């Protein structure tokens, strides 16, 4: 927030270039991360042909990548402000909620399409251990964001 205020002051002084210079690395970082997630989506599509996967799984993967992209973009653009940590916190919460709901608590049952209704073929994948691991890591990320926000605010208070 301090940097943002500083930027506004400098902008007020007519130094548009300075503002652009401070914004450019953030935009570049945001674009790079977004490109990374788009590349990840592309790679996943190459490794696991989407045509062979059920629609629910494709939607889930896309939704996951969309959330990641949005929060990474927002977090990077607001880098150096308190919003960076707020977006980081929100990203963690959103991803935990999304993965929990999308993967039905870790047990995913899919009915494979067959030419006739009999016999029915069901595929059940138990992701619970992976989901548990992922949620713990995301909780660690949330804790990091809280600590960083406290650090950021304390620095701001300490600053003359």
């Amino acid at each position, binding site marked *: 927030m301090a940097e943002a205020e500083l930027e506004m002051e400098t902008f007020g002084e007519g130094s548009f270039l300075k503002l652009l210079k401070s914004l450019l690395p953030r935009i570049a970082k945001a674009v790079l991360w977004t490109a990374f997630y788009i590349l990840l989506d592309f790679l996943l599509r190459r490794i696991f042909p989407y045509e062979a996967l059920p629609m629910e799984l494709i939607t889930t993967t896309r939704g996951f990548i969309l959330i990641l992209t949005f929060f990474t973009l927002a977090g990077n653009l607001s880098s150096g402000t308190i919003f960076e940590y707020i977006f980081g916190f929100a990203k963690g919460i959103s991803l935990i909620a999304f993965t929990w709901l999308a993967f039905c608590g870790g047990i995913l049952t899919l009915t494979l399409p067959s030419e006739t209704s009999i016999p029915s073929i*069901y595929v059940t994948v138990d*992701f619970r251990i992976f989901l548990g691991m992922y949620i713990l*890591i995301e909780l660690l990320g949330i804790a990091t964001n809280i600590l*960083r926000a406290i650090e950021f605010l304390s620095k701001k208070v300490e600053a003359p």
Partner: protein
Amino acid sequence: MERIGMTPAKAIGLVGRLLLIFFFLYLTTSLYSLYNLLSTGSFSLGQMEFTITEDALTASIPFSFNNTGFYDLWDLNITTTIKDPDGNILSKDETFIASVPRGTRAYETHRVSISLAKLLSGNLTRLLLEDGELQANISIGFTYAMALGFRLTFSNLSFPWGAPLSHLCLTPEDLRFNGTHYILPVRLSFENHSEFLHVSGRLRIEAFNDRGELFSTGLMDVEASPRSNYHGILEAIVWNPSMFTDRGKIRIYLDTELYHLGPVVMAYGGS
């Protein structure tokens, strides 16, 4: 941490990122490996064989699992449940392999046993006289890479049940006298549609006239191998020829080592 210029928040963040990278590597490689395992036909089934003992029918299905993936496979199990046409469970069998380490192939035979006594106890008459369908559910499950549970279930698989006494037919002919007794010749025929059940036993009939009075009984041995037809004539002794009527009922009893059928009541004469 302060000495190397890293705050606790940054340290936790770094650990979190490293864990996330390891997590996604683990998840991606295990999913990719599992997908490859399933799509390249690592699981193969052999020729099914049937064995019939005195009290059970056993189907043996040899299978193998070639673990060409990156990780070990645990708790491989195949479960088969067989139900009769009414949905009653006739058999539930499981074959379990504790582990298939990567780069190895496991061989096992899944055996499904159906107790003939159990099979025939519930719906004996129906199963012996009418063709039908038995239902099966087959489930294959395992744990991959210590963390990924996978289960494939085929439900409502049906396979035909051939009745050993299909199209059972009894046709009484005219009474005749053999010098000592009056005899009622009864034409008997049935089709053994079963793939494995041998019909071998003693058939007994009791004939009743239209007033419900017993007037004749008879016995004969029957023998029919699987997928064969049986035709024979049973000669029943008539105790009182005056009681014989053109219409009536015949009660049929069949005693074999495996099962006892009867009474099956069939009408004779008229429509």
